[in-house]
C-alpha cells in the first residue's frame, strides 16, 4: 500500500483565546485508501489532540462530518485524499455560511430551528391505534418521495447555497426538501400546516435556483428540484384560491 505525505491546512479557532480563525498546517502520512476524515483522526491522535471536529459513522450516513475541503462543501468521510492533486496541500475549513463554534465545528442552531419549523414528520389525517394496524403504502407511493427521504441533514446544501448566505432567514434547501418529502407521502396530511412556512417569502420564493445545493448533495436528494416543484404547487394553490374561491375550505 502506497503512502504519501500531504499537508493539511486546517482553519482553527479557539473562542476562548482567539478573536478570529487562523490556518494551521499539519503534515500527514496518508495511506492510499484514506479519506480526509482519516487524516483528521490521525492529526487528533498523533499530532494535535486539541483539534475539534464532528464525526460519527465514517460511512456517509450520519451527516456529521460535513466541512469545506478545498473550498467545496463535502463529507470528509467521502472525500478520498487520492482524488486531490498530487503534491498540493488540502485546505479544510468549517462549513461556510454557519458561525464557527470551535475549529471545524459550526453552530447548527439556525438549521435545527428551520428543520423544526417545517414539521418534518408524518402528520396523519386520523391517528391510528395499535388495533387499526400499520399505515400501508404501495411501492409506487413510496417512490414518490423516496429520493427526498435520503437527506442526512449534513448541511452541505446550506454551505453551497449563496442565497442562504445573503438572506439568512431563508428556510433553506434541506428543510424544504424534507417538507416536500412529507408532503408527497401518501400517509401524510400535514401539507396545509407546512404551507405557511413554504409559501412565505423566506420559504420557496427566496430560492433563486442556483442549483448548487443539488450539485453538492452527497445523497442525490436534489433539494433544488424539490423547491421548484413546491413553487409550482404553491402557484397552483394561489390561482385556485383566487379563481375558484368556492374551493376554499
Amino acid at each position, binding site marked *: 500500500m502506497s503512502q504519501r505525505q500531504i499537508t493539511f491546512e486546517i482553519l482553527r*479557532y479557539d*473562542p*476562548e483565546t482567539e478573536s*478570529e*480563525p487562523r490556518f494551521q498546517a499539519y503534515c500527514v502520512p496518508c495511506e492510499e485508501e484514506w479519506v480526509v476524515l482519516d487524516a483528521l483522526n490521525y492529526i487528533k491522535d498523533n499530532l494535535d489532540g486539541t483539534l475539534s471536529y464532528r464525526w460519527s459513522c465514517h460511512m456517509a450516513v450520519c451527516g456529521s462530518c460535513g466541512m469545506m475541503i478545498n*473550498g467545496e462543501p463535502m463529507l470528509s468521510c467521502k472525500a478520498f485524499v487520492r482524488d486531490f492533486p498530487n503534491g498540493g496541500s488540502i485546505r479544510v475549513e468549517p462549513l*461556510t*455560511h454557519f*458561525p*464557527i*463554534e470551535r475549529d471545524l465545528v459550526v*453552530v447548527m442552531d439556525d438549521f435545527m430551528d428551520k428543520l423544526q419549523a417545517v414539521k418534518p414528520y408524518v402528520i396523519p389525517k386520523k391517528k391510528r391505534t395499535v388495533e387499526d394496524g400499520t399505515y400501508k403504502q404501495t*411501492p*409506487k407511493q413510496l*417512490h414518490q418521495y423516496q429520493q427526498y427521504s435520503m437527506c442526512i441533514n449534513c448541511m452541505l446544501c446550506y454551505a*453551497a447555497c*449563496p442565497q442562504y*448566505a*445573503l438572506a439568512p432567514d431563508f428556510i433553506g434547501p434541506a428543510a424544504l426538501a424534507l417538507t416536500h418529502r412529507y408532503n408527497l407521502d401518501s400517509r401524510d396530511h400535514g401539507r396545509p400546516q407546512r404551507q405557511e412556512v413554504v409559501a412565505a417569502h423566506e420559504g420557496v420564493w427566496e430560492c*433563486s*435556483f*442556483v*442549483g*448548487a445545493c*443539488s*450539485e453538492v448533495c452527497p445523497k442525490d436528494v*436534489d433539494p*433544488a*428540484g424539490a423547491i*421548484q*416543484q413546491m*413553487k*409550482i404547487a404553491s402557484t397552483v394553490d394561489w390561482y385556485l384560491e383566487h379563481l375558484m374561491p368556492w374551493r376554499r375550505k
Partner: protein
Amino acid sequence: MSRNPYVREVPRTTWYMRNRRYIRYMLREVTCVFIGLYAASLTVGLVRLAQGPGEWAVYVNGISSPSGLLFSLLALGFACYHSISWFNVTPKAMRIPRGDDFVPGPAIISAHYIIWGVVSLVFLLMMGVL
C-alpha cells in the same frame, strides 16, 4: 467554557466570484437583460410602424446598421444561452409520472427543444422566410 461563535462575513457585492457555479448562475441571469433590451427594441419598432412609413424606414435603417446588427447578434446569442441553460434544468421542476416511475430528464429536455424548433418553424413560415 464560554461560547463565542465566529461569524464569517460574505461579500455582498462580489459573492458570485467565489465559485464557478455562482458565476455560471449569474451568467444565466444576466443574459435576460439582453432579452429585455431586444423586447424593448421590438416594441419601439411597433410604435414606429404605427407612426408611418417614414418612421418605420428610420427604425429599419437603425436595426440594419452595423451596431444594430451587432446588438441583434449578441441578443440572439444570449437568448440561446438563456434558453438552453433553462431547458437543461426543466426536469428538476417537472416530475411527470409514467407508470411506476417518472419521465426521464433527457426526454423532458428533448421535448423542449422539439417545441422550440416547431414554434420557430411556424414563425418563420408565417413571416415568409421559409
